[in-house]
């Protein structure tokens, strides 16, 4: 064996011991009267699992309570086995967890669990989304009325639309409030998740008109299009006032970072 490969080989053996339990490396570990090679190796093997388990536990407290101890352990050991970390930061270790739950032979029977997990991850990603100033409530009125028809919105980078097919967000809320969660049931809904001005993550349900408006602004549509959309929902007579109310509320909530008549597309993250 060439010199340059022995370090590599040892590292492959160590990774195999952590990931698959293959203990070939013990032949190359010195034991002593305190601990033999297997015992020494097992410190790393259990440390590896404990560390990842802790990340899942910290990132997904609601999922953890919802599943209860036994199912949580089943999920944790399955996930650690199936999905080693490909990230430099543990912050991302659970990014593939919703996908894992959606495809795992056991958990895929309960699709609301993957959805609840996805929701919990969206909250985390809004939490450390990029910073951007939010437009003040008065911004709109300060802009000359003649440019209003061309105005577009730039949403705050933390803003996401979360579409659910089950009552998973209600389940999340109940668990969070330490109440009995409702039984899972199909229930299409749409939620806006964002980070507020105190840098805390919030969410609220988005009624159909708001959803359509968010989509429309997201595509780069301007106020003229938004007013037409609003008219189809509430009628011509109250469309302008209705749209203005919605925009003022969005400004108040800190959803909007900029009102502009330029045409660079805004950025909105959509999760389904």
């Amino acid at each position: 064996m060439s010199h340059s490969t022995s370090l590599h080989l040892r590292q492959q053996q160590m990774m195999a011991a952590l990931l698959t339990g293959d203990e070939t490396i013990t032949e190359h570990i010195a034991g002593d009267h305190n601990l033999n090679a297997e015992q020494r190796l097992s410190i790393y093997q259990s440390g590896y699992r404990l560390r990842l388990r802790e990340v899942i536990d910290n990132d997904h407290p609601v999922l953890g309570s919802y599943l209860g101890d036994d199912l949580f352990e089943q999920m944790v050991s399955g996930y650690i086995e199936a999905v080693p970390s490909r990230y430099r930061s543990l912050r991302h270790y659970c990014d593939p967890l919703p996908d894992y739950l959606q495809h795992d032979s056991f958990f895929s029977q309960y699709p609301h669990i993957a959805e609840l997990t996805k929701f919990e991850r969206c909250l985390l990603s809004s939490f450390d989304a990029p910073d951007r100033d939010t437009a003040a409530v008065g911004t709109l009125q300060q802009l000359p009325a003649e440019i209003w028809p061309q105005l577009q919105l730039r949403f705050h980078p933390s803003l996401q639309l979360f579409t659910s097919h089950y009552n998973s967000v209600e389940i999340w809320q109940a668990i969070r409030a330490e109440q009995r969660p409702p039984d899972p049931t199909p229930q299409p809904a749409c939620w806006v998740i964002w980070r507020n001005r105190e840098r805390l993550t919030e969410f609220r349900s988005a009624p159909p008109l708001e959803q359509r408006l968010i989509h429309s602004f997201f595509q780069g549509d301007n106020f003229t299009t938004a007013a037409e959309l609003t008219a189809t929902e509430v009628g011509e007579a109250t469309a302008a006032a209705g749209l203005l109310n919605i925009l003022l509320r969005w400004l108040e909530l800190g959803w909007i970072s900029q009102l502009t008549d330029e045409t660079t597309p805004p950025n909105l993250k959509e999760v389904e």
Partner: protein
Amino acid sequence: MNDHFLGFGLGLRTQHFNDVLETRPDVDWFEIISENFMVAGGKPKYYLHAIREHYPMVMHGVSMSLGSTEPLDKEYLQRLKLLANEVQPRWLSDHLCWTGLEGINSHDLLPMPYTEEAIDHIAGRIMQVQETLGRQLLLENVSSYISYTESAMSEWEFYNEVVERADCLMLLDINNIYVSSRNHSFDAQTYLNSINPDRVRQFHLAGHSDYGTHVIDTHDHDICDPVWELYRQALHRFGAVSTMIERDDNIPPLNQLVEELQIARDIAAGILPRQPSGKLVAEREVR
């Protein structure tokens, strides 16, 4: 003048963000875990910048994987460089270890075999990193639970040699020396006495879990007496070296850590000579 001596610091932890800003504790500097702030924005970044206004900082990384036989992660290094531009740390450190292979991260600080091959390999990579980052790196000794049968030298010989060849600096973790001395039955004092004093820029102090037959580096306890004793010996040998306490689990209120840091200050005050200004100076530099 020893302009590397920052005094006595703590690791900056999420639980203490608000207390640090509001109470401005008597801590000379903070060490941040680089990976925890490699996010786009939000609360951690806000506090990082706000606290940085009031305290010097150093950056400490856990996933450079210097000893790994997979290629260096260029993207990680670029993100680290960006963060360093933001934070303007006094220095930047990572570990004498490897953390993963073939794209998979163990998120553990895995020890190297102490061989010529390993020295060549890791020293070469440290030089590459220093080139990329445009600064000298501090390299920290890790706690370990295994030693490889092919090791041809002691950990301290290996550590010294890597640091000389890579022309980097040392972050000496006093607790890790203690932990490894127990796990591998070597004399911690011998370790300290073998380290080249010219390279040492920072000390880590921490607590661990003692299982009798072995000791695990858990950072979830107060610092124990043998580690304080070793710290005394380190001060005698290395003089005034920037010292900080790492606490990562079972994290107590900030004031409790500030009190623990006072123990370090008191120990140092009894050992290190002072300048006329009252500031501690390194013994070696007075000679």
